[in-house]
């Protein structure tokens, strides 16, 4: 089963500054994680954080869409699950910008079986717990 997370955020800034925060590696490090991201279609990158309970702390991605300053999309694979993250920026005027996030993937039934680390493993144990 395919699932989508859909969220909207509004910022008081310019669309160019928001685009830069979403695509500049050093800025991404300040609000997401350390990374080697580049806004280039086909570029493969990693987000890295501290390993956590057997999870290697690595998210692998590949850039799918770069349409400055309106749309950015990449894959997001971690702990046995692969998702697609898509950002849509919309200038609302009056110095406000809407940021729309869509993250799509599959329900964890599939991911759990392939999952080896971290959240996947932990969720697998949870699954058993919840069945009790």
């Amino acid at each position, binding site marked *: 089963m395919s699932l989508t997370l859909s969220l909207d955020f509004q910022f008081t800034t310019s669309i160019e500054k928001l685009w830069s*925060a979403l695509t500049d590696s050093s800025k991404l490090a300040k609000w997401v994680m350390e990374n080697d991201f580049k806004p280039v279609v086909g570029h493969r990158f990693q987000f890295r954080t501290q390993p956590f309970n057997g999870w290697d702390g690595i998210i692998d991605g590949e850039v799918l869409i770069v349409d400055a300053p309106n749309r950015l999309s990449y894959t997001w694979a971690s702990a046995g699950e692969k998702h697609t993250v898509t950002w849509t920026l919309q200038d609302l005027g009056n110095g406000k910008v809407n940021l729309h996030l869509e993250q799509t993937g599959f329900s964890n039934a599939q991911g759990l079986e392939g999952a080896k680390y971290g959240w996947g493993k932990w969720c697998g144990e949870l699954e058993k717990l919840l069945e*009790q």
Partner: protein
Amino acid sequence: MSENNQMRDVFDAIADPTRRRLIRLLAEAEEKPLHELTAQFPMGRTAVSKHLKILKEAGLVLDRKVGRETRFRLNASPLREVQDWVAFYSKFWRTNMLRLNQLLEEEEE
């Protein structure tokens, strides 16, 4: 809904390895008194009690007094939130957005 009554976020509660171990231990039995739980950890009962308090605040653990001892048991239902990746990433991005907002505000100054 019970989620709204939680004093503590379930994600914070399970962020610690000791607390995850406590959850597993409690999952194995109907109920366990504090001294039995404490015996499983290289720390004192005060430290284990603090972890149990956090789990209790997240709605993951229930306790009751039996004579002079307190017995703990697992309430797994808040874990469904964690099991669901949509809920997990919703929390993840909302937290990140606070940092993004801060970054953008700093740039305006």
